């Protein structure tokens, strides 16, 4: 399940700016632990942002996206009080969805 995301969404002049911070290890699969063993890859592969039912962004990530991924983008529309939801899933099949209200 992971920890909750931090999602900020603000509408200005008809454009909604969304900023997302995700709690995730984003392990590359190339790092070695203290004992010298490879730490298996573990990273978010897909992330989708929706405004209501409409997808406003879908992303594919590789392991070189930083730990605790950050994402910022803008879409036309969206009004104060409406919801933006963000979902991700990782290569281990874990997933999570959080939502924020447009301010």
């Amino acid at each position, binding site marked *: 399940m992971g*920890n*909750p*995301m*931090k999602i900020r969404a603000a509408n200005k002049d008809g454009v909604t700016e969304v*900023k997302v*911070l995700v*709690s995730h*290890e984003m*392990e590359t699969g190339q*790092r070695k632990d203290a004992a010298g063993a490879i*730490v298996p890859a*573990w990273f978010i592969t897909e992330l989708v942002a929706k405004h209501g039912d409409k997808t406003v962004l879908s992303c594919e990530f590789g392991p070189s996206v*930083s*730990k*605790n991924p*950050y994402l*910022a983008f803008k879409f036309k529309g969206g009004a104060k009080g409406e919801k933006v939801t963000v979902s991700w899933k990782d290569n281990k099949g874990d997933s999570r969805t959080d939502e924020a209200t447009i301010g």
Partner: protein
Amino acid sequence: MVQRMLKTVVGVALAGAFGGMAIAQDSKVADELAKYREALADGNPADLLEVKGESLWSEKRGPKNASLEQCDLGLGPGKLEGAYASLPKYFKDTNKVMDVESRLVHCMVTLQGFTPAEATRQWYSKPGKESDIEALVTFIGAKSNGMKINVPATHPEEAKMAKMGEYIFYRRSGPQDFSCSICHGQEGKRIRLQELGNLTTQQGAGFAMKTWPSYRVSQGAVWTMQRRLIDCMRQARWPEPNYLADSIIALETYLQKNATGTVMETPGIKR
């Protein structure tokens, strides 16, 4: 004669131009570095941990199934606003000068019934292994955001700890002849591209202390002040002092005393 003069003039102008280029290069580096830091500041992963710390604070846990809400961090049970900024301080109930982490562990032991070993087992996070203490300290620290650091060290025990911290600050040893003061005892210096600050002054200590706890992008984790100082000693190529060791609390007292009056900006984010 005129020709020679001309040559000199051109030479000086050229030297000036080259000097200017060097400065221009440096200031361009500084500008891009500022851009980098600014880009990180909006979206600090420490915020995620702060939220987690908040729920850990009120969650009933441990053998006594109690929350930490009655924990006294120096300003009274449950009073969090400004508590971080006024630590370390002397506590009558333990007859010790304690920092935020030693006091937090004290509360986990006395209120929640954890053993000290249980409470400190994961005092810092590792990839895939989160630390409750990191989350709680991030939350507690954020409750002092915007407040002034206030560690005057007027109690005799606090004054003594600050003095002992000063001793450790100047203590040189190890295969690199280091002390804290080697890097942090002068104005306007940097190591690689990182500004160091003179920690013996209010300005320097304030600049350093106000942003902790901080998310360290190079580590992918929030570091508490204990973690920060223990790592300084690792970087000095010394052995690591124990977590919550008095000598770390002494250093913290010395630094917070020097920084007193500086407004907190926490959690921070840095290299």
